């Protein structure tokens, strides 16, 4: 980057909550308390072990209550990636190899797990999405016939913010007798989830997207469904996931979910930001418009020069970084790879448009003044981008 400065963007200028979020103070307090009182191994039968087990159980109860699931439906994992792998590989292990159906905008973790299943004799079929990133429902419905046995859909898309109609998808899967896994990593903490009311068999989430600690996630598994452990050893989580339970991290996760449930939606703030961004020359929205089909804290833009030539999203992110702002040009996980976003490509954008994405994701700490500053910074960054010739060839 060649930039020598020591400024660390303050929370106010951190607009990348879809990548990760700072752990909330209350969460840190809950973790500190657990650290002091429940540090023992919860499988131990002595008093410190029992205290740890009790704390673990309290966290489980709190999470189960917050997510509207039964206690034994909750499997603790190390994060979203592990939860997704456990869901797909663990469910498939109990099924005759058949077809897995996924959307064209899945997270790399799901794509990777799907590739694993291909090696195990499964076929994988991708359902296209429309220009807004919403799944072609008829195409999906048409695929819900043998040999399809498993469907995996990302509920809230991390790059373009689209929310799939999970209930309708689930209802169709149920009718067809096909298992459904929902990647809810971006949704958890932003929309209410009542697992028992959803026609979903597996649901994965990660604490660090909702101001909980990194290193912990969960998979909800509909009661009665078989799931083969992917981490053998120790017999924890009802034999579904081995390893000493991270009691402290789970205390933080439970607190984070509790806090998020009490936090008002970020949609109004987001909605106030969008029109101001759209007045900037060359800026347009990608993904669904604000509303029921979009993550409430999420905006994704495509940036171009006034002449309409796409600008590099990455360069814009660098420009903004120089001004102390943290944003992303797409998913954090793919930001080390090629410039064109596979997700934007799946939405039908050209190669160069697909390299011009900018993602803005809000946190509950943001105030109107922070948005003012962001708009101003973006305006400057756009000008700088144009001036330093970051134009892409169309």
């Amino acid at each position: 980057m060649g930039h020598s400065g020591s400024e660390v963007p303050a929370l106010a200028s951190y607009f990348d909550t879809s990548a990760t979020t700072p752990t909330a103070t209350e969460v840190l307090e809950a973790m500190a308390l657990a650290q002091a009182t429940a540090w023992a191994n919860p499988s131990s039968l002595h008093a410190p072990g029992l205290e740890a087990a009790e704390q673990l159980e309290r966290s489980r109860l709190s999470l189960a209550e917050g997510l509207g699931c039964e206690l034994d439906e909750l499997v603790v994992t190390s994060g979203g990636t592990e939860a997704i792998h456990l869901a797909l590989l663990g469910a498939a292990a109990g099924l005759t190899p058949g077809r897995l159906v996924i959307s064209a905008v899945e997270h790399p973790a799901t794509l990777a797990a799907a590739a694993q299943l291909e090696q195990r004799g499964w076929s994988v079929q991708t359902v296209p999405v429309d220009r807004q990133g919403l799944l072609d429902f008829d195409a999906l419905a048409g695929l819900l016939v043998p040999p399809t046995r498993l469907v995996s859909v990302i509920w809230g898309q991390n790059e373009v913010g689209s929310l799939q109609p999970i209930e309708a998808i689930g209802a169709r899967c149920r009718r067809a007798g096909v298992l459904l896994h929902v990647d809810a990593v971006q949704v958890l903490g932003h929309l209410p989830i009542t697992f028992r009311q959803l026609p979903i068999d597996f649901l994965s989430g990660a604490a660090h997207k909702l101001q909980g600690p990194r290193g912990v996630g969960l998979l909800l598994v509909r009661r009665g469904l078989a799931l083969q452990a992917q981490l053998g050893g120790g017999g924890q989580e009802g034999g579904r996931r081995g390893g000493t339970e991270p009691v402290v991290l789970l205390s933080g996760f439970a607190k984070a979910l509790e806090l998020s449930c009490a936090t008002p939606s970020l949609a109004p703030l987001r909605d106030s930001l969008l029109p101001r961004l759209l007045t900037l020359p060359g800026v347009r929205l990608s993904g669904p418009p604000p509303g029921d089909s979009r993550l409430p804290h999420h905006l994704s833009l495509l940036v171009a020069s006034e002449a309409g030539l796409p600008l590099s999203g990455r360069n814009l992110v660098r420009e903004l970084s120089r001004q102390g702002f943290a944003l992303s040009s797409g998913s954090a996980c793919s930001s080390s790879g090629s410039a064109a976003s596979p997700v934007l490509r799946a939405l039908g954008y050209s190669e160069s448009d697909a390299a011009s994405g900018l993602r803005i994701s809000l946190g509950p700490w943001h105030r109107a003044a922070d948005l003012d500053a962001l708009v101003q910074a973006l305006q400057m960054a756009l000008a700088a981008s144009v001036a330093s010739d970051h134009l892409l060839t169309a």
Partner: protein
Amino acid sequence: MLAYLDHHATTPCDPAVVAAMAPWWSEHCANPANRLYRPALEAAAAVERARGQLARVLGSSAETVIFTSGATEANNLALKGVCEAALAAGNLRRRLVSLVSEHRAVLDPLAYLGRHGFPVSLVPIQPDGLVDLAQLEAALGDDVLLLSVMAANNEIGVLQPLAAIAALCRQRGVLLHVDAAQAAGHIPLAIDELGIDLLSLSGHKFYGPKGIGALLVRPGLQLAAQLHGGGQQDGRRAGTLPVPLVVGLGQALLGAEADREERAGRLGTLRDQLWEGLRDLGGIELNGDGAPRLAHNLNVTVQGVDGTRLHRLLRQRLAVSSGSACSQGSPSHVLAALGRSRQQAAASIRFGLGRGSSDAEITLAIETVAAAVRELR
């Protein structure tokens, strides 16, 4: 007063580790996978620092370190990763060899691999808990792909002769995986010098946080990733890196290394006091007799008492266990391998001393066992 003498199950997180993690939870929250803005680069640098710390303490190089959620994941990754890669490379070696006294986090993935085309041989242990090297050598035939051996046993603390085992593996062209969950931070481990191909460890066993561990993998060794997706850690283990935990792991191992010799000396003396006190009660036998063992470990079988009643009495004043915490009271396969009956195994006590252990706690432990034995015999 309750004496916590169960440091093999877990250790309390070192306050210095908690402090080292603190700034990374919120102030420097950025996702290290993002290469485009400064806090993310700082997070990535912190991760690299921790890699270097682990590598330095364990006598290897930073690029060998893969962070995992703990030793269980590291063991699963090591065993399944090696087998899958061997399969893909068309390697004809398929057999996996291990010891009967391994932790379930090794035995379970081995059993899984056994059902998927990788036959498993478990070599017995001698009455002292150590493997017989001649017997091990005989088991390392031409079809053997990998040997998995724990450096220090989680129940009886015995230290397998790693240097000799590694030499055998090299001779036989067998990969060596070492489960060092109980050893890292407690005994010196020199991965490169010994010629260990893969080594697993877990933070919470050496005063670090729970939810983090690592697998160290010799450069060039083919290992198939088990969690794929974001391309993190060079594609060897996907998932957003938990930076605070990674930083905590590095700090914990540094801290454990810093007081390792002093601690081992002090705890070894306390442990010997404990053993002398217990031995004098009569009818108490050492498990893993005569073998080199972790300085903070003692495992004894109390003759002539009911194990359930014994532990119920001990529990009032001592946090100890009859075996692995993971087994939640089911009879120990390790003690069975030493020739102990179910009843004897149940009436066994594992002591794991730690940083906080004191003379007073050892005295309390001896008195508590003595009182229980008097009551039950």
